[in-house]
């Protein structure tokens, strides 16, 4: 039973489209995150979210928006996709606000053509 699952695993889409990536965790964690990994493997925080607070990395374009229907889910919606959005996106979760070890999902490879 996968602890943090993301769908889809691969996503190929055209510039200008709107797409969503889903994330679910069954660990009972109360904080979830989205990270972007570029072609050089650099992992960059995009959002952290618990049921009280959304924290947005100021460098993230407002075309990106996290949506959390409940504590176990944090989806990532992207509007007007651009070529530079191509990357691997990882969802992660942790317990509490202390930010100790995360559990990551297996990633979604987004390719914008």
């Amino acid at each position, binding site marked *: 039973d996968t602890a943090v699952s993301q769908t889809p695993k691969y996503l190929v889409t055209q510039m200008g489209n709107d797409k969503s990536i889903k994330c679910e965790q069954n660990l009972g964690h109360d904080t979830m995150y989205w990270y972007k990994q570029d072609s050089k493997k*650099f992992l960059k*925080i995009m959002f952290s979210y618990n049921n009280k607070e959304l924290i947005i990395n100021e460098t993230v374009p407002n075309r990106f928006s996290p949506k959390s229907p409940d504590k176990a889910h944090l989806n990532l919606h992207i509007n007007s996709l651009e070529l530079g959005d191509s990357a691997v996106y990882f969802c992660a979760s942790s317990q509490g*606000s202390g930010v100790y*070890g995360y559990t990551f999902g297996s990633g979604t490879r987004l390719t914008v053509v």
Partner: protein
Amino acid sequence: GESVGLHLPTLSVQEGDNSIINCAYSNSASDYFIWYKQESGKGPQFIIDIRSNMDKRQGQRVTVLLNKTVKHLSLQIAATQPGDSAVYFCADRDQAGTALIFGKGTTLSVSS
């Protein structure tokens, strides 16, 4: 600003050797560090962590050393195996304590 980085982007070793992966950090207030392993096509996996009140912590075949004086930590892997081939990241908490900040990663290649 804060940053967590690794000294070398790649490291190649022979099976059975010991591997040492290094990481430098800039935030002297950092109090918690983690090492992650990322295999090809997978998400990062937790390996070992260390708090700033410790100098050393050991796990199964792995040891993390923390030198707060020079703001440096290292991951030592004993008797490296082909299955250890992966990208290794160090990470610490951002200043607000709301997320982990990752270094750039070292790709470890193990040849048999």
